């Protein structure tokens, strides 16, 4: 049973379906070992945004205040999709990289462990 309800076959309204986001989709972004930005971030993006825009513009802007952001060696960054490591195609869109509506992309920056190594 997917809900205990007073009426039979009760169905709830899906409040966050993609069509409600005016042509965009939601993308969640998390930086491993860096918790000064206290939680992964949520942004609306055009599903056709090339993945390469993430390392090039989007992520550096989102984390602009972090002292580690300028030290990232993007060639060494490890990417995770729903927690699983993957090799993104930087020229292809986020959607074609398997990052659809409400997907979570995480990245690990080897050698960087936040403010004074505290994972902040």
């Amino acid at each position: 049973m997917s809900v205990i309800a007073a009426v039979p076959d009760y169905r709830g309204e899906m409040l966050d379906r993609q069509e409600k986001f005016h042509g965009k989709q939601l993308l969640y972004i998390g930086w491993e070992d860096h918790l000064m930005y206290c939680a992964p971030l949520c942004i609306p993006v055009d599903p056709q945004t090339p993945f390469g825009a993430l390392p090039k513009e989007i992520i550096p802007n989102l984390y602009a205040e972090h002292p580690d952001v300028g030290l990232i060696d993007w060639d060494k960054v490890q990417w995770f999709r729903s927690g699983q490591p993957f090799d993104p195609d930087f020229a292809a869109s986020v959607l074609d990289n398997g990052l659809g509506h409400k997907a979570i992309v995480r990245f690990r920056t080897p050698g960087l462990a936040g403010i004074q190594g505290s994972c902040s």
Partner: protein
Amino acid sequence: MTTNKSSNIAKAPRKLSLKENYALMTRDLGWQPSYQSVDKIFPHDHFEGIKIHNWEGWEDPFRLTMDAYWKYQGEKERKLYAIIDAFQQNNGQFNVTDARYINTLKLFLTGVSPLEYAAHRGFAIAGRAFRGVGPRVACQMQAIDELRHVQTQIHTISHYNKFFNGLHDFKHMHDRVWYLSVPKSYFDDAMSAGPFEFITAISFSFEYVLTNLLFMPFMSGAAFNGDMATVTFGFSAQSDESRHMTLGLEVVKFILEQDPDNVPIVQKWLDKWFWRGYRLLTLVAMMMDYMLPKRVMSWAEAWEIYFEQNGGSLFRDLERYGIRMPKYHEVATKEKNRLSHEAWATFYNYTAATDFHTWVPSSQEMNWLSEKYPETFDRYYRPRFEFWRERQQQGKRFYNPTLPMLCQTCQIPMIFTEPDDPTKICYRETEYRGEKFHFCSDGCKDIFCDEPEKYVQAWLPVHQIYQGNCFLPDADPTAPGFNPLAEVLRYYNLNVGHDNGDYADSPDRRNWEQWTGRPGAPVEEEEVGKAA
């Protein structure tokens, strides 16, 4: 006249004993319907699967009659308002430790007081749903209590509203401001469940198991910090609370004793509502460790006393009914040394959009945190706060300008870390009807997966903002220079520059220092050194 009066006395029926009075008020009102079936009159007390064979088995913990109730409550009200009057006349608001303390009241008034009102509604609804007269009357009494609580709190805190910012529109904010969707959705979840789940969730899990970690920290915090007005409404509510707690235990025992099939259903609710309640307590944890200028005890200490010890013995008592400790209680215990730090850092990130102020703890306060949290504070959190302090001294106070990812169930930003690793965010996800859903913990994921049709409807503030649903009707997102954050704050009815942002340069602090001639925050040792 004299003759009449004495003849009236002679004819008057014998005054009922309290017991008889109570029996007539409850059991005697349970008449048998003649032209409708009982199931049709009470359609909502069986769809949850709870089997009640004998409603008469309900033992009322307090045989309170209406006249006794009015008398006791009337006396309490008179005392309460006399003290509030005296507090106002003596400008008691300036006797608190410092103006940082007022932020706990803002958190309480916008976060907790509306839950008292929600409880009033919930118990009124539950009372209507039960066919048994005893529980019906008990729910009705509690509904009236809860209404009284919210009124006393509003009266008390409205006084503070004359002197401090952020307290002016608590009801509007409760329905809109991002972090307030956490307490709001908690109660909406309970109220939209069936009556047995509601009463198990609120009377037992909330009032019985967790109240010592919710209500009491605010009240003892008030006492420690010289806020006698809040202490007074706390005391006034406290005698009701102990009645409610006893009711909570009675409810659960009654359901469990009625049928063995009820046991797994109740256990599932205890698991769910323990976790929902515990997540809500995140707000209390940070209040205790960061927001009280004079601390009562640390969150970890409170958790040890009130949950690990007291809660442990409660659940041992319930073992004979086949009930075990709530699922994931051990995760909560693992989190006790980080919960408050993760939470305060979150509000520090997003205080541009809160109705209260945040600040970096003073050096002395950080030392207190190191002492209370020797395994975690210096290693994981102190570097963050010291970095933020440094930035602030350079005039670059850190604000996180991007909205966070939220947990679908508890609606808290995804700030919690893996049970065994405080450096890794805890990510859990599932798919339902072709869409991804994310959670902060196994506890929240289990709750969703048990009833996904309920939680796909969650009103997540971040997603609602991106859908464009958090602007006032006159806002035009297509206009040049449209500023979404400013528009959302206007929708929240936040007075920007007064209610939100860092405490250091807030009008609250400036006013406090002008009006009282006392510092608005602890004077740092290094500053004292410089001055000398």
